[in-house]
């Protein structure tokens, strides 16, 4: 089973890299870009788990390691690779 985890800076936390990228886009002439926030995507492969169990484990590992809940939010999704 494959899962994709997204870790992003919490709302209201200044994200300096995104701000720098937004400025660069503005200097390239893309005035339409209002803001950029950079986060992380992690692709995770799991074995011997049901979807329900996988979601429980993903929640746990996000809390314990993948995200720092002080500054980051996380979401994840199960990617069904059996159909592809």
């Amino acid at each position, binding site marked *: 089973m494959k899962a994709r985890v997204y870790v992003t800076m919490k709302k209201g*936390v200044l994200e*300096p890299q995104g701000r720098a990228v937004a400025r660069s886009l503005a200097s390239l002439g893309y005035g339409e870009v209002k803001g950029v926030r950079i986060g992380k995507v992690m692709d995770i492969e799991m074995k011997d788990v049901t979807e329900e169990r996988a979601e429980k484990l993903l929640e746990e590992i996000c809390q314990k*390691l993948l995200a720092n809940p*002080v500054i980051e939010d996380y979401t994840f999704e199960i990617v069904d690779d059996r159909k592809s």
Partner: protein
Amino acid sequence: MKGGVLVFPGSNCDHDCYHVLKHVFKMDTDFVWHKETSLEGYDLVVVPGGFTYGDYLRTGAMAKLSPVMSALKTFVNRGGPVIGICNGFQILLEAGLLPGAMMANVSLKFICDHVYLRTETQDTPFTSNLQRGSVLKIPVAHYQGNYMASPETLLELEDNDQIVFKYCDAGGNVVESANPNGSVKNIAGICNRERNVVGMMPHPERCSEPELGSVDGKHIFESVIDSLAGKVP
């Protein structure tokens, strides 16, 4: 009296900390490899700076899972003094031994410079020889030193006198222009509620001998050694 300097893969200020304890203060000192599971017999533990595990995922995020960290928690729970310097501070934050988190410097630049710190509290084993308001000149060298905490945590830090050092100018004024990295409220160092764990971004071990241009860092080690010897109430 025995000091332990933790060594993780990627620690690089371990030798400097060891040198200060062992050769400047003549303290019996060991390097303690991160796979160790006990800190029995140590009176002081230093979590040194560096780039543990290449700063993968987040600074300190991997190191917090090393076996020695459970031993460190036991050491902290029985009141042992611990100082985390730079990456050591980041590790203590990730491990939950200190509140808050570190982010990239607002400038997005690695900063290697001397900064001034104002001592905010005398009430920790590492600042007991200093006065509240004392100004220290100590070098910083970091990319992720932008301290951040929730408004509730900041309020707690202030209410419980847990802010240990703030970035200031040479005259001891805590002003925005003296803030090298964007840290909230110019925070350079904090302690836990029980006061035995201190984390700071600047490097006192790099300025503890006259040959290095400043001995301001020495006061921090001297304080804890005197505290342990019972010279300070």
